[in-house]
């Protein structure tokens, strides 16, 4: 039977046809209406597509229908010709072959010499190989590859015929890599990158549906991705860093921009479901480190049940995050092997195979949460395995950190470093690239960013609300440090040479403040410490009967009806008041017992100012006064208490005292 025997039932084609149907539903289903089709295929995507189906893997399924003694692609090409004569309702029957071509491109390592043809055909020959093995099949795969190009064109034409109903075509001839560029460009960008790219288009102010210069677009994306790497796949980020892959990316970006409708889509997995990232969170509890998962909410998914190998993880929206319940994925296993949990609306994924994770304080997550960015002036802790320790130690040593004993975490095989932070951007970038720490990238400061400051109301999880008087510093990137480039509330802000600008001591008022530079703005809020609520006065214990408060300093005496005086027994002012708290001097009092026969309390301050208090009412009954009593009275007889209720009684006492002195002994001056 010849390979070109049409679409007759044939066991060799069974697996191929299974893959055709699977790829058609995953990538070209009706759910793809008006969205760019990114035909991204790699090993993990294939595993996900295959699920538990008992079917040959893609490479074997395609290899088994190829014609290894002539143009290997002829059988598939023949099927496509037949398909062309039909209704063309479904995608052309070349999808498994095109997927195998993309898989070969995805398998190319960055260490190989760029995206060149030899490296590509080598990988293609690994994916597609005759059952009898050998190494002779590479040449026909390469020499007849023009046939595969024809099938890409066939797919492109069919998508366009559908007018977007089955997705927008991103298949485009690449002027540099005319043949292999079709597959290679599909291997760079995956559907999950699309949301991030749409954010990029919006942030750049690009117009939907309009053509753009691919070179400029790529340059802008490189700069944008340095600040906003979230949502971009590692492969795309690598491609952005690679000048050799620029020719592949440029036309693809142009195509995506042309097909963009101006909206900002959610991150989607290649399955079409919304992508939720499960992140590891460490909490420094009283009893030690604790670990859990954290998932930030995505619009459109309020709840879902995500199936994973150990059970179902339940998501329920709670403010900005999901409340997680059900069967939690094992953290150690997920970090080692990776994890995909699938629901009806969303997928959650954990990237496996990492030996070093970096975590930063995240008030929303309520602990140290996994991130893939490292920057300066932010505190971090590192989770690492035994094999990650070497690269991590190199990174820390190269950034001037002492290696401190790590702590245990409840993840078998992992430990966590004490908290640390980096101060020098260039040193960090260089050390990170030397260290061998993967899956963490340096995040250069390219915009105004707030550092330090004392945050308040952490329970609000507001990351820009600071205590008045403890304003944050602002880090200004190098290109914005020139005079007048940065403003604070509209006023130019002087920026020191290192960029770290102190905002304290500028008399900022409570409320919102805006830092602006280079067309972007960062705001923060200041709030004074709230005054404590006023309470109800407690019922004070009653004043001890028969006592009175008298000053500690000065001359304090009780006067009796007979005109005699009694000194009040008082402690001296503490010595430390003089030496360490002079503000207390003269203000202390002591409660003393009132003698039974005392009528008046007279207190003469250290400055000589007298104060007279009536203790009980009794008419004067002076007898002869001692010399000491006369001396004391001599300072009081001219003291008039006019205006107070007991002034008349005091006057009678003064007159009684005066009668004790010789006539003419006092003269009012």
């Amino acid at each position, binding site marked *: 039977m010849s390979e070109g025997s049409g679409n007759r039932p044939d066991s060799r084609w069974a697996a191929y046809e299974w893959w055709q149907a699977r790829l058609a539903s995953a990538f070209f289903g009706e759910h793809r209406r008006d969205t760019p089709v990114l035909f991204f295929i790699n090993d993990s995507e294939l595993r996900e597509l295959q699920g538990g189906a008992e079917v040959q893997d893609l490479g074997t399924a395609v290899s088994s229908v190829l014609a290894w003694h002539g143009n290997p692609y002829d059988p598939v090409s023949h099927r496509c010709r037949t398909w062309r004569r039909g209704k063309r309702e479904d995608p052309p029957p070349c999808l498994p072959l095109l997927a195998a071509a993309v898989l070969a491109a995805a398998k190319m390592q960055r260490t190989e010499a760029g995206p060149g043809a030899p490296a590509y055909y080598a990988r293609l020959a690994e994916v597609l190989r005759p059952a009898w093995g050998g190494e002779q099949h590479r040449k026909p795969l390469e020499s007849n590859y023009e046939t595969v190009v024809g099938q890409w064109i066939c797919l492109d034409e069919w998508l366009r015929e559908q007018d977007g109903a089955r997705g927008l075509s991103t298949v485009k001839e690449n002027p540099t890599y005319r043949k292999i560029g079709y597959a290679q460009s599909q291997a760079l960008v995956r559907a999950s990158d699309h949301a991030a790219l749409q954010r990029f288009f919006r942030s750049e102010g690009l117009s939907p549906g309009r053509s753009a210069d691919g070179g400029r677009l790529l340059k802008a994306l490189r700069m944008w991705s340095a600040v906003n790497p979230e949502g971009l796949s590692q492969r795309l980020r690598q491609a952005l860093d690679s000048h050799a892959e620029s020719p592949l990316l440029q036309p693809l970006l142009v195509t995506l921009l042309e097909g963009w409708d101006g909206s900002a889509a959610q991150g989607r997995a290649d399955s079409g479901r919304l992508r939720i990232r499960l992140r590891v969170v460490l909490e*420094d509890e009283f009893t030690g480190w604790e670990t859990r998962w954290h998932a930030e909410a995505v619009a459109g998914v309020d709840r879902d049940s995500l199936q994973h190998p150990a059970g179902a993880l339940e998501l329920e929206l709670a403010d900005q995050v999901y409340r997680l319940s059900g069967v939690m994925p094992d953290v150690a296993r997920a970090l080692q092997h990776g994890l995909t949990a699938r629901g009806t609306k969303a997928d959650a994924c954990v990237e496996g195979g990492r030996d070093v994770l970096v975590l930063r304080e995240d008030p929303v997550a309520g602990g140290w949460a996994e991130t893939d960015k490292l920057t300066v002036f932010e505190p971090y802790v590192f989770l690492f395995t035994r094999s990650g320790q070497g690269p991590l130690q190199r990174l820390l040593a190269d950034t001037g950190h002492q290696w401190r004993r790590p702590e245990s975490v409840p993840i078998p095989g992992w430990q966590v470093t004490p*908290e640390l932070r980096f101060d020098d951007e260039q040193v960090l970038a260089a050390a990170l690239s030397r260290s061998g720490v993967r899956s963490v990238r340096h995040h250069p400061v390219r915009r105004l960013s707030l550092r330090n400051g004392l945050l308040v109301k952490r329970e609000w999880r507001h990351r820009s609300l600071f*205590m008045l008087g403890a304003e944050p510093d602002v880090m200004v990137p190098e290109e914005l440090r020139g005079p007048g480039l940065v403003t604070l509330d509209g006023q130019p802000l002087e920026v020191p040479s290192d960029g770290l600008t102190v905002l304290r001591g500028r008399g900022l008022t409570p409320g919102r403040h805006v830092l602006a530079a280079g067309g972007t703005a960062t705001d923060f809020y200041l709030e004074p410490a709230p005054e*404590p609520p006023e309470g109800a006065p407690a019922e004070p214990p009653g004043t001890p009967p028969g006592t009175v408060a008298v000053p500690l300093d000065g001359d304090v005496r009780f006067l009796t009806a007979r005109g005699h005086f009694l000194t009040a027994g008082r402690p001296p002012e*503490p010595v430390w008041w003089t030496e360490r708290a002079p503000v*207390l001097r003269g203000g202390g009092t*002591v409660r003393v017992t009132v003698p039974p026969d005392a009528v008046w309390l007279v207190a003469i301050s250290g400055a000589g100012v007298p104060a007279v208090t009536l203790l009980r009412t009794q008419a004067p009954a002076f007898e002869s006064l001692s010399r000491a009593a006369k001396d004391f009275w001599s300072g009081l007889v001219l003291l008039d208490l006019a205006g107070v209720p007991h002034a008349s009684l005091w006057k009678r006492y003064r007159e009684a005292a005066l009668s004790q002195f010789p006539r003419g002994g006092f003269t009012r001056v």
Partner: protein
Amino acid sequence: MFDPDLFISWMAEQRSGSLATLIRDASWASGCERKPVTQWLGRIEALGAVSIDWRTGRWSANACEITDLPGNTQTAVLTGARPVGPDFYRARGAVAVPQGPEESGIPLPTPLWLQYEERSRLHEFAASAGVAAVPCAAGSAARSLGAFVLGDLAAPPARDSTVERFDPAVGRFSPVSLGSSWPVPGLYRFTRFGRQPRYALLHRPGRQAAPGPVRASAPFPEQTWHSVDRRAGIHYVVPPAAFPLRWKADRAGEPCPGSLGRMTVDRRTPLPLAQERAAVLCTGLASLRTAGTEHYDGVPLFIADRIARTLRRRLETA
């Protein structure tokens, strides 16, 4: 630029947190390195603004209260972490003495006192400031001081630790080797690479520490290791008459238990935190530090005596 009162207010607002983060934030706010910041935190811990668990690395702010000073002077001090700055309390009648930079180079928070004639005034102030008025906290703290008890059993120092033993005669730690001889009872400090020092008492029931190493042929199976706070451990092993506590009355004459005076402590035998807090609460001021001594002012004789007794130390009075 550093405003210690603002930082205390922020701590009151935060209520609790990680010590490492607190040190980082205080370093930024004060512009000082970790070591002086740690010293400063130790000072505000003694002042009662904050409680710090140095081993678990957590801190919590203490509630703000107003409490009478000992000495019957009708003067009260604000203790704990104040949620707002001194001006708020001054507006309600409190008086303040801003503190300059001290040994750590970082100023301490402003002490605030209220002087009153009637107790109703104290309670009125407490209500308007949103704080609780409590009886003399210094006296309460002194009465609650207990005699030293051995802490939890601890493992002996690990073999790879650097081990030092406290020499009670000179008041310093000196390196010792535990490999070749049985260790003598006493206070040990052991440091493992990259970790905070740990302190442990080697206790041998009924036997006193003998100077010098013990021969390896004389094991003491009954001796036990106990984890201990450094300062409490020092007082446990120092003989009562060595580095005595001293108390000097403010005024000449025969002192009575309530007489105020200055208590002086050798810095080689610093007061444990509980005792230090009782002493500091007598004024609301941190100890005055000199090169070799710490002075605690306004301490009544009965509190000084209580501190000395609970530490099994002799109190010399003058």
